[in-house]
């Protein structure tokens, strides 16, 4: 087995958006030419604001949405060439809201056991045993087997969602904002559980989040997404110590640590999320960038290679020349 478990090659996804009854449709590029490699056993975090294309990317990874162009490979096998069931065996999601991701009419045992039934694993008794094993693993009491989601707290539901995602022992788990709907104390428990399970089962996480404090806590590598493009990809230590892209810097400055001596930071970037429908000749971040140059308006920024990754910004190029 190769070291790269998940690979994206120049993946784009475009949507046709209706402009009104008598107008033609326009194209919205939700994900533009994304190339990534996720190594086995690492936590790869994807950060960005709402509308940056994170969730579209996650849907494509799960095989729920075909890319418009480009390839997604799991263990070297294209997702497009394998059937849904085979993809689901290797890659599983944990979603943000455990209130809407669990069917309220199914018992906990049914919810966790469903993937086993779908994949025709063992008989009823062995499936039940497997479900009990998963409950223990995620720290839920066995008496909850026959409970329904309505009887569980938010944290317990998220544990059920984790158990369901892991019951088939997938290689990659896509965590799409797994703790942002939870209370602070519950969030800590779930993050601890995710880290424990990763160590125990040797999982790879593709972790989507907008909470940079959480990302710094558990990621090995981080990619920053803006308007469908990856603008920076670095190791955790490098990115947090010295962000390369002005957008990454603004994101980091927006993290509010509980320090009463500091005020609210001024990120100096405009409020308006750029319209994804407009085509940018130059850098897509240029309208909000506090340090934009003339060149940013006309020419797309080239990739600047950094010791631990890369970023796309004209400023980095200029610094390298100077």
């Amino acid at each position: 087995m190769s070291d790269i478990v998940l690979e994206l090659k120049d993946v784009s996804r475009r949507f046709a958006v209706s402009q009104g009854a008598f107008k033609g449709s326009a194209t919205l590029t939700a994900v533009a030419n994304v190339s990534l490699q996720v190594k086995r056993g690492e936590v790869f975090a994807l950060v960005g604001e709402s509308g940056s294309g994170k969730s579209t990317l996650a849907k494509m990874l799960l095989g729920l949405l075909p890319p418009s162009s480009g390839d997604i490979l799991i263990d070297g096998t294209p997702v497009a060439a394998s059937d849904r069931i085979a993809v689901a065996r290797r890659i599983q999601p944990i979603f943000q809201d455990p209130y809407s991701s669990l069917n309220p009419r199914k018992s906990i045992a049914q919810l966790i056991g469903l993937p086993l039934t779908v994949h025709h694993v063992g008989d009823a008794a062995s499936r039940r045993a497997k479900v009990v094993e998963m409950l223990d693993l995620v720290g839920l009491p066995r008496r909850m087997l026959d409970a329904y989601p309505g009887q569980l707290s938010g944290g317990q539901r998220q544990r059920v969602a984790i158990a369901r995602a892991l019951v088939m022992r997938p290689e990659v788990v896509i965590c799409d904002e797994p703790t942002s709907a939870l209370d602070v104390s519950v969030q800590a428990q779930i993050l601890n559980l995710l880290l424990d399970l990763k160590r125990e089962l040797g999982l790879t996480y593709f972790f989507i989040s907008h909470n940079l404090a959480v990302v710094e806590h558990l990621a090995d590598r981080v990619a920053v997404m803006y308007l469908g493009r990856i603008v920076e990809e670095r190791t955790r230590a490098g990115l947090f110590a010295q962000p390369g892209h002005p957008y990454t810097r603004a994101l980091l400055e927006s993290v509010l640590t509980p320090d009463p001596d500091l005020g609210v930071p001024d990120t100096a970037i405009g409020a308006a999320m750029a319209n994804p429908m407009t085509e940018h000749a130059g850098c897509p971040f240029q309208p909000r960038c506090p340090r934009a140059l003339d060149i940013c308006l006309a020419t797309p920024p080239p990739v600047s290679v950094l010791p631990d990754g890369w970023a796309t910004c004209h400023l980095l190029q200029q610094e390298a020349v100077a």
Partner: protein
Amino acid sequence: MALLDVQDLVIDIPVGGGVLHAVSEVSFAVERGETLAIVGESGSGKSLTSLAVMDLLPRVARRGAARLAFDGIDLLKLPERQMRKLRGSRMAMIFQEPMTSLNPAYTIGNQLTEALLCHENVGAEAARARAIELLERVGIAGAERRLLQYPHQLSGGLRQRVMIAMALMCKPDLIIADEPTTALDVTIQAQILRLLAELKKELNMAMILITHDLGVVARVADKVAVMYAGAIVERGSARAVFKAPSHPYTRGLLNCIPVPGRTAPGAPLGAIRGQVPNLIGRLQGCAFRNRCDFAAPECAGAMRFESPSPGHDVRCVRLEAQKAVA
């Protein structure tokens, strides 16, 4: 005299199995120009407390207090007609989800001017001028054009700015912001919080900020009240509460959040064991004692506030024992 003075606020909700004591004996005061943050997890009673001040509780809930006064007006005895005059004019509220609290069928202009036209004797033209002025003040470009737009035509950050402008239309003395930035992106959150702080200073308003985000509280608040299971467990200046958190629950919460530079990456985060108690039926003693490392038999008895420093109150009878361990 404090602008808002709340003493021993109690909110009871009759439910199937008895009475749910949603809020018990909550006391706080807010001065003009001051921001009080009420922080707590879901179910701690922080939102109900703010609704009780505005007299907007659901009909089944029963409100009681030793004192509930706004600028010297006794809100407990105030008839609904008078209360309605205060609400929206002198006391205003900003809610979490701007998409659900704006009416999708009316233009921004309609919704902005409604409160002003209803509370003050102004003409439509003057109300419109004030709306434009405020939209510009909260950083919305092209205000005149925005007045004709509908909520769905605005982004989340813009909608929240409209909500803030709406709350400010009648120049309120007190503004209650219930999770005003929770639904927003981090970069927008910082901008909205800065805007709120600026406006508060400029208009000398009092602000109650309700949130679960300790980072927001530390950066914005002058005073903090930490709520757990319907009661305030710790209150004081933001500096005192964050520099010397003294209730085991406050400390537990602070240990739960990863802080860049303080928590080691990948190391287990602090966790608070157990679960929030059921608030139905008679409560006695400290509600946190079943989850507390310092719990002792005396924690089941009557609770009182201890003060580790002046103006810093902690609802814990085991402060000495905690110190001995630390």
